[in-house]
């Protein structure tokens, strides 16, 4: 028996192992897609999540296209991190990288801002004076915060006198924590608001409320603190089943609500906020901490371009696109992606992840003289943090249906540790992979 024992020397064993490894690697290299040859000029306005992800995917799909990105900001912001920064869980640097870190070779970055867009003659004029002609235009500028839309308010107030605005950027989010941490330590009245306009990540104002509630409990100051969530909408979340869950959680946590209350004015010195209700009646509220979300609108250059919806969101100016293809309804060579797209849902990075491949397919098909039925269904995802260590992984579509990625495994309406782990560990990694066009 011993004569037929498997005799494998050290060298033979290593060779076998090496061969197995080489086979495994070979399997990963078969993704090369047939490239479409073109000389099309593609201008992408905005090198944020959407613009960068699309650029990275297009260079793999198109051969010879002239791809130009226009973005005057040198920093790339990982915006899903702002909630964590504003709760003192991450430093401001957590969300900051360089715009150029993520761009593929073979594209041109204009470090400038668009000053005017003429969709009739297909040009974009930059603030520096240069004029770019395009065959295809991707509008991915993101949105702007209208601080002045609240009487008595301006951006330089963030972080002082108990005022927070976590949406303003990594530094504003860090200053928000400076103000919020005093409230967490000392207690008092905290007011958490929402704007009447469309907004990016409608879960963020809820997360901020939940996180400060949890931090106050852990600091032992929750007994001295009153929480009020005030919003212009009639419900706590756009998706009814989620709104009900949040209502129950607010009840458990002792967070009061004032629905159909829109923040109209703020008196920073007196720490007094004025809300207007659905009947137009003013209500004054004193606060020790207030989280302000300014009204959110399309940048002026978009609103002046004629690309915005004329029949809806007229005070906000989102780009008029088909909700499924994200193609402009009047200019077929124009697409909009991300926050600027005039669709009912989808102002999140998770939406961008699903929108980008759809626009990529339509653009490549159009260039190749083909068509595609790729469609965006409104997918939006929100790891709704309900305390440090737990979150609800909420995913939904245009029809307010829950569309869980892991049905039966990760329950969307349960506060789970695994959902927190995803937000804390996997989300930024997935986002970065998306930027590189790999997810």
């Amino acid at each position, binding site marked *: 028996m011993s004569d037929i*024992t498997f005799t494998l020397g050290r060298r033979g064993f290593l060779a076998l192992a090496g061969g197995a490894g080489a086979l495994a690697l070979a399997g*990963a290299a078969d*993704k090369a897609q047939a490239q479409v040859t073109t000389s099309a000029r593609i201008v992408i306005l905005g090198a944020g999540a959407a613009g960068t992800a699309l650029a990275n995917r297009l260079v793999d799909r198109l051969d010879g296209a002239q791809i130009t990105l226009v973005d005057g900001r040198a920093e790339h912001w990982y915006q899903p991190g702002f909630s964590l920064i504003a709760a003192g*869980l991450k430093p401001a640097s957590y969300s900051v990288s360089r715009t150029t870190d993520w761009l593929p070779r073979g594209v041109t970055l204009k470090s400038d801002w668009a000053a005017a867009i003429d969709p009739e003659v297909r040009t974009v004029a930059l603030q520096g004076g240069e004029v770019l002609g395009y065959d295809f235009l991707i509008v991915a500028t993101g949105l702007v915060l209208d601080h002045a839309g609240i009487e008595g308010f301006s951006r330089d107030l963030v972080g002082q006198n108990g005022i927070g605005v976590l949406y303003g950027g990594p530094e504003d989010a860090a200053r928000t924590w400076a103000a919020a941490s005093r409230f967490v330590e000392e207690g008092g009245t905290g007011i958490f608001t929402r704007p009447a306009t469309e907004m990016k990540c409608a879960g963020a104002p809820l997360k901020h409320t939940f996180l400060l509630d949890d931090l106050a409990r852990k600091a032992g100051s929750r007994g001295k603190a009153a929480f009020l969530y005030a919003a212009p909408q009639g419900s706590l979340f756009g998706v009814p089943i989620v709104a009900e869950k949040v209502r129950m959680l607010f009840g458990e946590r002792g967070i009061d609500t004032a629905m159909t209350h829109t923040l109209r004015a703020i008196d920073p010195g007196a720490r007094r906020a004025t809300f207007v209700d659905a009947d137009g009646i003013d209500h004054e509220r004193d606060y020790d901490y207030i989280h302000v979300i300014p009204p959110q609108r399309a940048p002026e250059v978009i609103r002046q371009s004629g690309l915005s919806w004329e029949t809806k969101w007229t005070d906000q100016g989102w780009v008029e696109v088909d909700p499924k293809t994200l193609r402009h309804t009047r200019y077929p060579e124009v697409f909009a992606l991300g926050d600027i797209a005039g669709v009912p849902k989808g102002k999140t990075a998770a939406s961008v992840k699903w929108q980008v491949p759809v626009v990529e397919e339509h653009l490549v098909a159009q260039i190749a003289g083909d068509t595609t039925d790729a469609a965006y269904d409104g997918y939006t995802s929100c790891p709704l943090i309900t305390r440090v260590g737990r979150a609800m992984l909420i995913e939904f579509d245009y029809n307010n249906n829950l569309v869980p990625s892991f049905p039966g495994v990760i329950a969307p309406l349960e506060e789970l*540790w695994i959902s927190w782990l995803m937000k804390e560990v996997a989300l930024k*990694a*997935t986002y970065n*992979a998306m930027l590189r066009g*790999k997810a």
Partner: protein
Amino acid sequence: MKELTFETLIAVFEEVFGRGLFWLMVVVAAVVTLGYLYVLIRDRSVSWRKFLWAQLSMPVGAVAAVLFVQAMTRSGFADIGGPIDVIVLLGVAVAGAVGLAILVYTLESLLWPPSRREG
């Protein structure tokens, strides 16, 4: 997630740990696994004495892995919210236990090989 392919998963893990560290960890895991297989094949039998030490190290590996994950993610046992959380916790513990056991056994076998029988 839209499509969780193997390539996506690799890309995500590269971003979690950084490309260099991730592949270093893959190489370390592969080397330890190969080392384990190597000593098993070389010795042609499991040394129950070494295996005992490996087994004794398992609870240490399990606890260390759980505490490491909790410390890295600012969470604790109180955050366990449902069955899937218990499964994830047990998974982390099992991975830590098995990982450390294999490491201990392999190191023991490499450092103290069985006395070579005369052929």
